[in-house]
């Protein structure tokens, strides 16, 4: 009896100890994060106004803006999302549901896991060699989007596979037993049931990509862009003779040079500032926009997850 008492008391004490420890660590982490964000917000928010959002960079700090940067970030992410998401999900489905398990698929599996850990600048080097020099895609939005797409592809694949693996096998059997084909099982059951997990993984990958700087610098993103990529069907600049030369195609913008928020931030941070021409608030303001994008993506992830979780249970 006595012994039992002691054991229980010790167990309780350890529980409490761990509780305190965990809570402390959580508070410390959150505080550090909070201080960092607060500092950024204090420095950046006063600088954010309509002028800042709608102006191109300038040598005068007060006249400079982040227009080309945030538009660039959005367009690059658009390319990244529209390539990496479908490809990654398809590859994940193939590996998890279609591929026979053998040495070859094992090899692919290991390599994908490794790819997720490759430093991002390596992707930049690869993209420089492959996309810029080999395929002559230029230092364009397309190149940047594809580079970041390569970067997050393994993450999307792994997230897809994990989410599919979380679906109990008896769900698949229930559908197969009614005569569903493999594709029908995937479309009617596996994809809807795993949508929450996949969306979470995809969005977290996207919020990593949106902050990436190194690979884009490597492929040659510019730091000073004083124009926007051509909007679809906007008129081409008039020739010397003044004749109307027609308009841009719907996808002309993907070949445009670009910059993105983190690069613009870096450019402003590293710029020598003189009294009356301080670029630090600009950098902080660009950082705030970046964080808003990231938080927006994460909010979307939470929203999707909650919705699917309410619908899908087993």
């Amino acid at each position, binding site marked *: 009896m006595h012994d039992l008492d002691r054991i229980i008391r010790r167990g309780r004490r350890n529980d409490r100890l761990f509780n305190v420890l965990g809570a402390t660590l959580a508070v410390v982490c959150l505080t550090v994060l909070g201080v960092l964000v607060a500092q950024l917000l204090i420095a950046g928010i006063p600088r954010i106004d309509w002028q800042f959002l709608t102006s191109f960079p300038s040598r005068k700090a007060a006249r400079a803006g982040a227009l080309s940067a945030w538009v660039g970030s959005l367009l690059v992410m658009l390319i990244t999302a529209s390539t990496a998401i479908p490809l990654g999900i398809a590859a994940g489905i193939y590996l998890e549901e279609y591929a026979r398990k053998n040495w070859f698929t094992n090899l692919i599996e290991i390599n994908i896991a490794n790819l997720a850990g490759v430093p991002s600048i390596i992707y930049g080097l690869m993209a420089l060699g492959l996309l810029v020099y080999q395929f002559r895609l230029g230092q364009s939005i397309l190149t940047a989007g594809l580079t970041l797409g390569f970067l997050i592809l393994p993450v999307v694949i792994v997230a897809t596979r994990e989410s599919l693996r979380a679906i109990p096998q008896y769900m698949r059997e229930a*559908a197969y*037993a009614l005569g569903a084909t493999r594709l029908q099982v995937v479309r009617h059951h596996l994809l809807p*049931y795993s949508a929450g997990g996949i969306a979470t993984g995809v969005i977290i990958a996207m919020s990593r990509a949106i902050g990436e700087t190194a690979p884009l610098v490597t492929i040659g993103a510019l730091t000073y862009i004083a124009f926007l990529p051509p909007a679809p069907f906007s008129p081409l600049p008039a020739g010397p003779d003044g004749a109307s030369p027609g308009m841009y195609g719907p996808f002309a913008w993907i070949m445009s040079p670009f910059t993105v928020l983190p690069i613009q931030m870096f450019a402003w941070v590293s710029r020598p500032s003189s009294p009356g021409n301080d670029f630090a608030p600009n950098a902080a303001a660009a950082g705030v926009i970046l964080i808003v994008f990231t938080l927006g993506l994460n909010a979307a992830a939470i929203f999707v997850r909650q919705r699917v979780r309410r619908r899908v249970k087993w």
Partner: protein
Amino acid sequence: MVAGKALMTPDRSSPYRPSADPPSGGPISLDLPGLPDAPRPAAPEAARIKADVRGLSFYYGKNQAVKNVSLAFRERSVTALIGPSGCGKTTLLRCFNRMHDLYPANRYEGQILLQPSGINIIDRHVSPIEMRMRISMVFQKPNPFPKSIFENVAYGPRLRGVRSRSELEGRVERALKSAALWEEVRDRLRKPGYDLSGGQQQRLCIARALAVDPEIVLFDEPTSALDPIATSRIEELVHELKSKVTIIIVTHNMQQAARVSDYTAFMYLGELIEYDSTATVFQNPSKPLTEQYISGHFG
């Protein structure tokens, strides 16, 4: 009785005829007009055969789980598969809808002839999809889809190309009625299937299996996860269903086998030990092993 027997005779041989029966030789020969309420014969040989298992062996890789089993399942009757854990009941059952095809390295040998056409279910050239469309399964653990009650039942018909809303609704209602669930869920067809109790979920799964008018329904220990009341509802249901379909049910529960089945097959270590009418198997088994199992000496 004599007239009934005479009428049965061509039926017994019909499964082995190469092509389809003439229309008059259908399973309803007992209902011919003028016949005074012919009783359903009790002896195994008397009813028409729905599925004829011949020399069936099944291998999980190198591990042989079903060993040269031959038996004929009678149409519109309930056949119970009993035997100690691991004797291959589930394995045998899952041969019928080719569930083993989902996993690599599984191998069938022998034949399961689906009558009256005589198509060999486990032939590699026969589509597993077709077999699953004709033979439904109810699993041990209730496994409704995380969709609405309606969508759960409508899924099978949808897979078979039923698009019309009204037809789907009709089928869902009929299936839920057959599964004795309609009264409980009629006002909440749009609610998720997993909001139901365990027993209701299992009846939902039965409705889902019935909505496609299957020729055979396979039950793999359908009540093992349920309480006694839910169990007896399912048993009643199985009893009613046999007027429409052929039923094969795996069970660990001797009383259940005795209550619901017309025929009982006793398996042991992958082999079929005894197969006869349930009454005979339980009251007068011919093999000592069967008797030992039934009287609870092992298993």
